[in-house]
């Protein structure tokens, strides 16, 4: 099995090395999530075809799918792998550039803070609702939001501190675009 190269080496100067294992862990979790829910969908098809459907399969598949999304979003934040409209800040230089790079990350940080606080409120509220057929509280799924928010906040602060100290790099705008 090959897991080498899972930690992105781009924008190295915006990263703390001690957080690399966390990025690697998140990448492995992404792989586990997509592999598990792929296998579960196959099991769902097979058990249905043989006339003995396992009712819990669909619910568990959805759990892995949803956790995979939020884990992936956290990893994307560290790797700067998000979907962008444009990065006008990168065409700027000097203090102006520093200001807008920090501003962009401040916006992300505010959203992450809302995900942590209001996500936590949703977790508390989620104990009142149950998922069928396992009857597990919805809170166990909602908890992915504040955890994701905390990781996004951590990685954003990492970039802000390192960007403030070392400056932000001049990477080509197109390189950071991702789409369907």
């Amino acid at each position: 099995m090959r897991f080498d190269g899972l930690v992105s080496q781009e924008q190295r100067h915006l990263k703390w090395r001690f957080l690399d294992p966390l990025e690697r862990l998140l990448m492995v979790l992404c792989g586990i999530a997509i592999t598990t829910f792929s296998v579960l969908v196959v099991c769902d098809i097979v058990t249905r075809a043989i006339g003995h459907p396992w009712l819990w399969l669909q619910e568990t598949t959805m759990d892995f799918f949803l956790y995979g999304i939020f884990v992936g979003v956290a990893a994307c934040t560290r790797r700067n792998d998000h979907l962008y409209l444009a990065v006008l800040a990168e065409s700027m230089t000097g203090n102006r550039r520093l200001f807008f790079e920090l501003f962009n990350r401040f916006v992300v940080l505010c959203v992450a803070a809302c995900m942590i606080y209001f996500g936590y409120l949703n977790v508390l509220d989620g104990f009142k609702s149950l998922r069928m057929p396992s009857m597990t509280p919805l809170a166990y799924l909602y908890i992915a939001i504040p955890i994701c928010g905390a990781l996004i906040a951590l990685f954003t602060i990492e970039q802000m501190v390192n960007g403030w100290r070392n400056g932000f790099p001049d990477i080509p705008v197109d390189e950071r675009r991702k789409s369907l």
Partner: protein
Amino acid sequence: MSNGTLIVLMAVLFLFFGYMGVPVAFALIASVLLITAFTPVSLASMIAQLFNGVDVEALMAIPFFLLVGDLMTSANVTVRMITLSQTLVGHFRGGLAQVVTIFSMFFAGISGSSAADVAVLTRTLAPEMSREGYDRAFTAALIASASTMANLIPPSIMAVVYGATGNVSIGGLFLAGVAPGVVVGIGLMIYSHFFGPVGFKRKRATFAEFTTATKQAAVPLMIPIIIMGGILTGQFTPTEAGVVAVAYIVLVAIPLLNRRHLRNLPRDMAFTGLLYSIPLITIGAASVFGWMLAYLRGPAMVSEWISTAAGGDPFRIMLLLTFLFVIVGDFIDAVPAIIIFMPIIIELTKNADINPVHMGAVIITTLAFGLITPPYGLALLMASKFVGIKFSKAMLASLPIYVVFFIAIAFTIFFPDIVLWLPKTFLPQSVGCFPNPNGTGYICP
């Protein structure tokens, strides 16, 4: 503040954040959270909506269609399809340009992603086109334009998103996308033949060469048959068809064609796991935006304007929506655009009595065109970057190709019978047909 002012403010904030460099998902959420402060809606419910937006079973198909394209590309299996395309059309005038279009049509049947198509073609055919003297701007424009077929010919991720959010049959949308996809493909071939570079003159492939190439490409070409066959026979949902295609690649295609790649599978899975979270969190964020837009009665306002301007005529409504989506597609990605504007589409589809699958085909074709139009023509941006040409030059080279898309969009709007022929034939219930009480066939409205 009035609802109209809040809607405009929300849109301006989103575009401001987005164009400054805030990731799309965060730009969408941030603009909604700021506007929520002026409404009685709780911020906690907006964050919950982020979760509810992706808690949709049909969206599970997206990772599988991304995975199919990624595995085929990383295992280098796609080269066999390029060889087959060369034996089919390599001897035509502008042979390599024709190969790009034919390969894209094949690849569109495997992957639902334009990005994967651009990545494969710029890595394999673009260098060869440069050696043959093709203008690099033309190469980038053609590759980007051909890659849009991935969103039209099934499986299409745009169709999955459209179907999942608009409660429209995904199978029906898949089949309705075939006709506009083929029109784009034929249009690009005609354009390349008459207006593209001549390229090297090649000999027509012999029947033996064609047979060998077909045999070698047979394994990957089974994937579209598995996906569409499973859906059409009612054996699988689109999600299940996607996972069966993935299982086929992992258990059959890669062991047969590139066994050594199996050890890279864990890494491929990790990267695809990461990759699918990008569109899906954008879908979640766009659903938050769409929810707030609906709360502020945006869809009702816009659909009223469009209905009034079109006078209730379905074709005029579709033309106006096309105009709206050409503009929208210039500035934002197709997936959030579909989700944000879905309430407007639903309202207009219902009011003008348009078939939802037909409307879906029109919108998806228009948004596929948006992938090559500036400033946010993502397929063109990627192609120009990988081919190594300035975006402005690639954009100029793509301008004449716009005609192909205008024809495809007009065809999709004005020939619903042709567009809906495949869904009516193979999935009649997807387009509103119902079984004849006599037990013979279907009655279609």
